[in-house]
């Protein structure tokens, strides 16, 4: 009678395996679907019971806190209102999460994601989240909003050496404590603008780093030069003779840079653009759905970097179908200022658990070496000239050498409406400013805003 007993045990093994299988199904494979089931109130109830971690600015200013509603429920409060609404985002039981509240939801809600953390939690207190210390500076953020003065636009300031985000401002902002009415469209990370002449620094970087041009290389700057089969004009139809690249950047001569771009070719330009981070989401600690890549767009879709639809000559001066985010242009300035090393932009410098231990240090993180230090230094000298005697004099600071580039992208030439740009950097800080659909030029409108942000950061 022993054989049937063995088989019987075999059946028990199979039955228990089915139990393990179904338990896995609910706990792992279908867990997310079950959490999202409308009849499941657990997620909602649990999130309310968690005392979410605090979010603080670099100087300790409280950006997001948790307030007790009753015995064991909490609600979020944002003492700085709309000032930090875009980077911090909001947390709402019925509207979901945006910004840092979304990206760092696991640590903020005390949800350990690794096995060690899970084991610790078996014995440790739960329901208290970890705090975020951001890299954001309230003074710089305030200066950015003051500078934008209600006009649509965006300001991004990055630490040149680390990639720390010191300011991330976009207008219009919203009230994070009223998520139902919030328009979370973030012009700094999702706004796509033609970069205008600011893009010439990318072309210049490629020109110098390939070794095919020097700052002193002479190129013909004549007005109405034929580029890709069509004549191209300079700003104000100004006609230059044969000039060197430093002069061409200082005075933002279109025909020179278009020729340089054409000579370098689509492939070389594509290679440098990708190294600068174009054609992919910027690697910032921010939700994917709130980041957009920069590059050539056609019918609302991002083209391939070497697509046949690209007019490389016009792209080289920031025209054609090129659309960029302010964050991307800030990253370009940061890279050049940092001797050619691009850093990943970071909003958070450290994550601190309730016991005061630092559990994560997201900052700094190298992204990619874009160009040699020598080429970066040459380009920096050229860009300093722009601020010293060229189109960007409005950003000049007492005692600090600012390197920059203006941009004026024509939107409605008949009405004189342009998107106004300025990107710049000092040894400490890189700034990108865009003001949408205004009269004037990048040098007159955007550069002073960048100067105010730099001053707010103590420069």
């Amino acid at each position: 009678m022993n054989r049937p007993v063995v088989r019987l045990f075999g059946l028990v093994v199979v039955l228990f395996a089915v139990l393990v299988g179904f338990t896995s199904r609910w706990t792992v494979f279908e867990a997310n679907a079950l959490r999202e089931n409308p009849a499941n109130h657990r997620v909602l109830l649990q999130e309310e019971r968690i005392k979410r971690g605090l979010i603080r600015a670099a100087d300790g200013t409280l950006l997001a806190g948790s307030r007790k509603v009753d015995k064991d429920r909490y609600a979020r409060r944002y003492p700085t209102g709309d000032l930090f609404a875009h980077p911090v985002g909001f947390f709402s039981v019925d509207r979901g999460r945006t910004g840092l509240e979304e990206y760092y939801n696991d640590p903020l809600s005390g949800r350990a994601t690794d096995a060690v953390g899970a084991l610790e939690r078996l014995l440790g207190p739960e329901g208290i989240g970890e705090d975020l210390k951001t890299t954001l500076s309230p003074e710089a953020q305030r200066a950015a909003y003051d500078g934008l003065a209600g006009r649509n636009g965006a300001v991004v300031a990055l630490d040149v050496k680390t990639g720390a985000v010191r300011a991330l401002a976009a207008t219009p902002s919203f009230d994070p404590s009223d998520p139902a009415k919030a328009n979370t469209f973030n012009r700094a990370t999702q706004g796509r603008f033609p970069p205008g002449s600011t893009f010439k620094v990318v072309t210049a970087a490629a020109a110098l780093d390939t070794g095919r041009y020097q700052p002193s290389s002479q190129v013909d700057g004549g007005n109405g030069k034929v580029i890709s089969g069509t004549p191209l004009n300079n700003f104000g139809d100004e006609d230059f003779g044969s000039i060197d690249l430093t002069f061409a950047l200082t005075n933002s001569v279109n025909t020179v840079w278009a020729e340089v771009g054409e000579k370098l070719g689509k492939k070389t330009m594509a290679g440098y653009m990708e190294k600068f981070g174009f054609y992919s989401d910027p690697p910032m600690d921010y939700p994917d759905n709130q980041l957009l890549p920069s590059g050539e767009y056609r019918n609302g879709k991002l083209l391939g970097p070497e697509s046949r639809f690209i007019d490389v000559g016009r792209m080289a001066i920031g025209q054609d179908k090129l659309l960029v985010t302010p964050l991307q242009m800030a990253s370009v300035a940061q890279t050049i200022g940092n001797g050619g090393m691009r850093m990943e932009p970071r909003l958070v410098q450290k994550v601190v658990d309730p016991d005061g231990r630092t559990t994560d240090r997201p900052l700094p993180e190298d992204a990619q070496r874009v160009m040699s230090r020598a080429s970066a230094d040459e380009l920096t000298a050229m860009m300093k000239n722009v601020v010293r005697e060229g189109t960007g004099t409005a950003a000049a600071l007492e005692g600090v050498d600012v390197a920059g580039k203006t941009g004026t992208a024509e939107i409605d030439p008949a009405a004189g409406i342009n998107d106004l740009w300025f990107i710049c950097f000092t040894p400490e800080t890189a700034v990108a400013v865009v003001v949408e659909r205004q009269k004037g030029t990048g040098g007159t409108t955007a550069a002073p805003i960048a100067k105010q942000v730099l001053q707010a950061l103590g420069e």
Partner: protein
Amino acid sequence: MSARNRELLALLPASLLLVAGFAAIFIQENDVLSDVSLTYGAAFLALCLAVHLVIRFTLPYADPYLFPLVAVLACFGLVVIYRIDDELAREQAQWFVVGLILFTATILFLRDLRLLERYRYTIALAGLVLLFLPRVPGIGQQVNGAYLGVKLGPIAFQPAEFGKIAIIIFLAAYLRDTRQMLVQGSRRVLGVTIPPIKHFGPILLVWGAAMLMLVFIRDLGSSLMYFGGFLALLYVATNRLSFVTIGFALFALGSWFFASTVSHVQERVDIWLDPFKPEWVEKQGYQIAQSVFAQADGGLFGTGFGASLLEVNGNSLIPAPQTDLIYAVITNELGLVGACGLILVYLLFAERGFKTAMLAGESFSKLLAAGLSAVFALQVFVIVGGVTRVIPLTGVTLPFVSYGGSSIMANFILLALLLLVSDRARRPAGAAAGRRGLR
């Protein structure tokens, strides 16, 4: 090392588990580690030692792992129940004491298992009466449409828990006598082996009565458990798969019939198939829906001991967390890993039980051990399968883990019977005479 010393050592993990578990919950709930947890641990350890001593002096050759496995399950259950309601945990601990007394009494009264064989018809009758009790007006209690409990004055109990042991004893005794005749006297009709009616009659009668009672008292989970146990025993006794096939076909037919006629059964099946239907997800389907929601929250590693969300403003979020749905609470707090650990312990217990059956020299002991192990494993399958939506959810207890006096007592008797069989099976040839002389 002797079997008993191995048993003693094997108790260590159980006591460690208990102390660690209580400590975790104390930290969770009071934010301070109180020495009360150590007291609890020590008291339970003393209880385990007492059981160990009982086994050491009465059944020295019995399997050394059966009891430590039970101790692990009991510790686990006690910790989880304590986490749900500390008052219930105290009661549960008291039931363990009662279970222990019953365990000792069973071992002392049944030095000779042949006693059970002699009274098989009496035991069968007692089993059937037990099953019928919940339907008797005045003492029967109805819970969720099923008649599961009996209340006699201050004492309330669930007779189905004890009934299962009575039925298994009867079947084992009866099949020992008739198994040869069942095999030899059977005829083949249309390629199917049909057992002789003469010898199969009584068994069908007893089983049929049990099934009727179960439908009568509407306890579907026990019905599945009993029927599975019956088929398992029949298979072990005859080694004929065709008998099992016939039985299964009969059961399928019966289930289909009841599912389409008895509204209570029908509803259970509908809810099982689609618990999230808006019409009943907040009503009849609430229990199973909350069960899988709780498990989904547990994930791989669980929310942690004592961290499960059980109450909302004083209302229970998971219904019957200490009995039917205790497995969902465990999965919620300890995750898939903890749940698998629990199932593994049950599997090891079943393995020791079947091993005992294989070692047993004599047919009745063999059938008894196999039957008890099978019905134990099936009970785990019925309740865990119900909670995880493998089968419709029905109310049986998770042995040694769920809160409930009847369950603890009945399963301690089951353990005593298994150990009795094991002691006889593993006793060395020379020692038998010596022990008998001592008595």
